[in-house]
């Protein structure tokens, strides 16, 4: 048995994972080879240091609470209103996100980010408003999101409102925006705007069960770097005036 083969089996020997025959052969070689004995001692010491370091680190861990877990399970089982509220807040500046265990929530925020980025791109390149309107679903809620009712006394639309108001901009651009902004500040949400609308639908079951499918997309990895829409528009050379 060569030294190389013996050394390759040393850790398995220390772990008690060698068959009797191989164990005897390794032991016999080590008994007569000083270099292998030194290597064996070094590997054994390393093995013990690593176990010691890992166990010590694990000893100080806080005990996870089952009640906290169960609360998450119950929330997971009935995600309707609170989940949507959370998703809405996720689109606002300063909203915090826990990236571990977001599971489907992370995915749908990611999906929201994708949709938002796509919408933004369309607006910035000057896609005619009618085309975005064609893509909007005909449901009343979606129409509310893209067709805020005009109000009087408007000044100018904020950047955030411009995207949402891109469809009716040709008809009443200056009037539509403030209403949308007001709703974003305070009101419940199905009508809060495009950012919200993309998150209104629960993910398909296949995605719930396979969160790993999308976690490696660059857009998902860089969620925290996504700028809020207002900030993006404020920094845009066009100042969000497209549309």
């Amino acid at each position, binding site marked *: 048995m060569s030294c190389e083969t013996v050394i390759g089996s040393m850790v398995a020997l220390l772990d008690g994972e060698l068959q009797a025959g191989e164990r005897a052969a390794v032991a016999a070689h080590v008994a007569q080879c000083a270099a292998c004995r030194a290597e064996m*001692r070094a590997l054994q010491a*390393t093995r013990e240091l690593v176990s010691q*370091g890992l166990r010590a*680190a*694990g000893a*100080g861990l806080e005990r996870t609470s089952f009640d906290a877990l169960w609360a*998450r399970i119950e929330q997971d089982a009935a995600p309707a209103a609170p989940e949507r509220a959370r998703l809405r807040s996720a689109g606002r500046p300063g909203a915090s996100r826990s990236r571990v265990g977001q599971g489907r929530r992370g995915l749908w925020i990611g999906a929201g980010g994708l949709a938002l980025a796509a919408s933004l791109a369309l607006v910035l390149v000057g896609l005619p408003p009618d085309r975005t309107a064609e893509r909007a679903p005909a449901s009343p809620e979606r129409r509310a999101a893209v067709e805020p009712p005009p109000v009087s006394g408007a000044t100018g639309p904020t950047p955030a409102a411009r995207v949402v108001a891109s469809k009716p901009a040709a008809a009443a651009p200056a009037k539509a925006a403030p209403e949308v902004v007001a709703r974003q500040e305070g009101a419940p949400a199905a009508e809060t705007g495009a950012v919200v609308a993309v998150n209104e639908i629960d993910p398909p079951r296949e995605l719930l*069960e396979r969160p790993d499918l999308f976690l490696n997309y660059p857009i998902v990895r860089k969620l925290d770097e996504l700028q809020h829409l207002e900030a993006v528009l404020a920094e845009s050379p066009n100042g969000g005036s497209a549309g």
Partner: protein
Amino acid sequence: MLRVKEGDREAFRALFEKHSGPVSRFAAGFVGAAARADELTQDVFLQVYRSRERYEPRAKFSTWLYTIAHNLCLNEVRRHDYRTRVDMDGQDDGEPAWDPSDPAPAEGEGYSVQRELEARVAELIAGLPEAQRTALVLSRVEELRYQQIGEILACSEQAVKSLIFRATQRLKAGLKGYLEDGG
């Protein structure tokens, strides 16, 4: 687990109480950040509960559990890039946190040396390739057999033996300052 499949909360609590400690230790060892272990452990059991109807008792429950834990921990480290740039071969300036030629630590210094060792081990493990890291942590922390580790990693026992050996070799180089004879 069969009761858990039917949505029995108390059965799930018993399962959690039995296995959450080991999962938490694995997560802490794998991601090298104890602060993340609690949330990762919750994520693992949340996934267990979500997937309970698909569980089939063909393999050990702990194998299935660690497979989930392994996947979630992998996602976690890939997202956060916990990996610390460490010269695993010890070819850099080598400055060990503790020089073995120093006098033995006086009483009271043992604690800080121990913490330093923990930090160094965590740093080195974080720098291992993923499969080596998983195999090593499962073996060192939970003392799983190579066969079970192979089932979790979907590889042979021989491959596990090789992974753990290579991981130990790399750690030996990184811990040379802590080894009595310098490795």
